[in-house]
């Protein structure tokens, strides 16, 4: 079975945060179409390692599209060409023999590059810490069925909660805006009755930290929705905006 692919790779190499980076050329041979994209990179890395060269650093963990670790731009698209797919779930059968693949890290001011394809996304954690939660001290909860939640609301909340925090939305946006990420969490929590109590404070605090972290403004280009591997809907941003306006108005009233 020799339907293996030969590919030319141009990969961003950067030693650390303070050094300059550049695209470097590599070749990989006889890549099985059944390989995942990351397994293709593993193959390259093992070859580099056996030659005593430093492998390409990239982030990955679950390799099943759920942890949100993997993060790279392939030929200009965050997570590569397949819609609704993280790069760890992208398979090489999607590519053809002789293709050239340009592989780069997320690019955003709020996500500084640490090395090669690895960026720092702790800004997302700080946004969550600012308000992306429902306070429920351990032990204080009433019975799980004490509050009924209409199925549609639970489903909509789940649609938004499916965000894996990978940052592709930021990488896809020409303004490097984090609105889809923030909107997904605000929607998830504000759609549920438990989340109503803290709703106003939550949205104001999260948006404030989002701005402080250096993410850009949302100008409604919708690139984020297209590239989101979990297909989080842009309508969440509309919901975020409504929540924010409501909360700001209320804050002025008080």
């Amino acid at each position, binding site marked *: 079975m020799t339907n293996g692919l030969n590919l030319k790779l141009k990969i961003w190499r950067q030693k650390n945060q303070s050094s300059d980076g550049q695209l470097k050329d590599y070749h990989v041979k006889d890549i099985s179409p059944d390989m*995942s994209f*990351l397994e293709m990179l593993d193959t390259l890395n093992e070859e580099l390692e056996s030659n005593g060269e*430093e492998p390409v650093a990239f982030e990955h963990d679950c390799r099943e599209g*759920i942890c949100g670790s993997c993060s790279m731009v392939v030929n200009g698209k965050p997570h590569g060409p397949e819609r609704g797919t993280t790069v760890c779930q992208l398979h090489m059968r999607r590519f053809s023999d002789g293709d050239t693949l340009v592989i780069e890290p997320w690019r955003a001011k709020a996500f500084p590059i640490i090395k090669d394809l690895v960026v720092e996304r702790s800004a997302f*954690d700080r946004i969550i810490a600012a308000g992306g939660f429902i306070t429920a001290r351990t032990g204080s909860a009433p019975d799980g069925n004490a509050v009924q939640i*209409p199925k549609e609301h639970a489903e909509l909340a789940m649609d938004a909660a499916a965000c894996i925090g990978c940052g592709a939305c930021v990488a896809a946006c020409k303004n490097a805006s984090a609105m889809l990420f923030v909107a997904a969490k605000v929607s998830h929590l504000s759609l549920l009755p438990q989340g109503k109590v803290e709703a106003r404070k939550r949205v104001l605090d999260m948006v404030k930290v989002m701005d402080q972290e250096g993410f850009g403004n949302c100008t409604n280009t919708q690139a984020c929705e297209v590239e989101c591997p979990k297909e989080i809907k842009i309508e969440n941003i509309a919901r975020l905006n409504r929540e924010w306006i409501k909360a700001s108005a209320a804050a002025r009233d008080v």
Partner: protein
Amino acid sequence: MLESHAPTGPIDKSWDNHRFNLKLVNPANKRKYSVLVVGTGLAGASAAASLAELGYHVKAFCIHDSPRRAHSIAAQGGINAAKNYPNDGDSIWRLFYDTVKGGDYRAREANVYRLAQVSNHIIDQCVSQGVPFAREYSGYLANRSFGGAQVSRTFYARGQTGQQLLLGAYQAMMAQVQKGKVELLPRREMMDIVVVDGAARGIVTRNLVTGKMERFDGDAVVLATGGYGNAFFLSTNAKASNVTAAWRCHKRGAFFANPCYTQIHPTCIPVSGSHQSKLTLMSESLRNDGRVWVPKDPSDKRAASDIPDQDRDYYLERRYPSFGNLVPRDVASRAAKAVCDDGRGVGNSGLSVYLDFRDAIKRDSEDLIREKYGNLFHMYEKITGENPYKVPMRIFPAVHYTMGGLWVDYNLMSNLPGLFVLGEANFSDHGANRLGASALMQGLADGYFVAPYTIGGYLANTKLAPLDTTHPAFDDVNREVENQTQKLLNVDGKRTVDDFHRELGRLLWDNCGMARSQASLKKVLDEVPALRENFWRDVSVTGSEGELNQVLERAGRVADFLEFAEVMARDALTREESCGGHFREEHQTKEGEAKRNDDDFCHVAAWEFKGLGNTPTLHKEPLTFDNVPLTQRSYK
């Protein structure tokens, strides 16, 4: 002497009584105590959040860039609780009973009862946090039957239950970070534990970005660092999952219990080639509607859809008429191995079996099946390029979870005072086999509802001398860890870390996997030391110490797997019986079922480290079953 500290007396009162008897820390004093929580998955994040809410000062260490990446996130199926919302006869007692039996009578009864008891609080807690569990049209919580349970006690959030529960715990913890009660230290790997005057008092971590070794002191250390499934190289575990933290504690005196208990999950996507870097689990909820089969005749090479029913062997339904496709994981996995050993496996490699939805689609419509399993079918198609609505899925067992782990008493404290071990990292409540949807339950039970009390009990009862990280014990550990790192970088060999890892994995899978024998286990014990020697002679670790160095990280973890593998095989060799996930070929019934030996092995095997290359010492904690009578498991 291993003292479990499990309360005696009526089991349904034991946790209440025990909690009452635990000394309390004066509220004003709590902030003077600092607790180091290593690992921020379900168990670690829930413990960190709950301890901080109580007022303790918590430092939480996370190997990833963010705690939201922990491997708990990948759990698909659900979380069990004894709510009995469907009114189908469930109860705390039944969940307790099923778990003890499912674990093949190798768990501690009192722990399991407590687990079943707090399961209900977990659901309440998670709902309050905003976990979007599936709901009925009525707006009430939905349940399903899962993993062989005969009642519907599993709560779920689509196929992403682990993700949603983890995000709940993560968010609760981040709220405490914001308040300054939890100090979060991401991109840190625990390299070793610091023991002073016999108690766990600190850790040394490597900052994965700068490469610097850092020291932290505390009054207690909580280890919630997951299981050791990646010893096998190929498993469903995430790539960073490793045994290092637990192994280093073991080398400093903590006993390792039941390392031979490994869960091999029956419904995973088969290996596609030598490039395979990990395996992907398909939630076993699929077995609710999918039927497992292989051709009756090994020479039958027709396409699946061309094989008529009379030529198919629905072997689970045939062998286990009352449980059918829903037999527990260990039973289903072994049955798949048996038909493949028979030459009846399907796919190019002959190492897979069909999981067929043809009849379910005919009965319920493709739409309904899509609604239930759409995301799983989608994932399967992405990975294999095959459409499971049209052709049956192919599945094969893969290493998934480890029931063994550091030994803990009823308080979840190891024999090393001050070291608490939570979640998959401890030897746990699952005995020799874990039931589906019970891992999330145990991780959260430990973190939200058990450890916050028992750690308080320990601190209230213990007088610890004040110390800081300038204590000479920290210097010693720090030096050892730095030496090991230097040693790895100095080998300057030719073989990649992964290449060694793959070889170890293959050796373990073939000889200490779904079936083990005296001969195969001796082979492991013979070959592992040689492989380890090779590793230290010929491994290639590129780059340097003072930077982000993923090769160095992996090399350290593989070095520890190469040590750990021995105690896993030794435990399997010593346990002359078959139970749960541990199947010794010498010990089976005429029908090929696992045969326990309760007279000689109704105990927890806890191993004490005696130096590398030396035989570890075995300590036994006898198990008694006063509430669930010992019987041979039968799913016929």
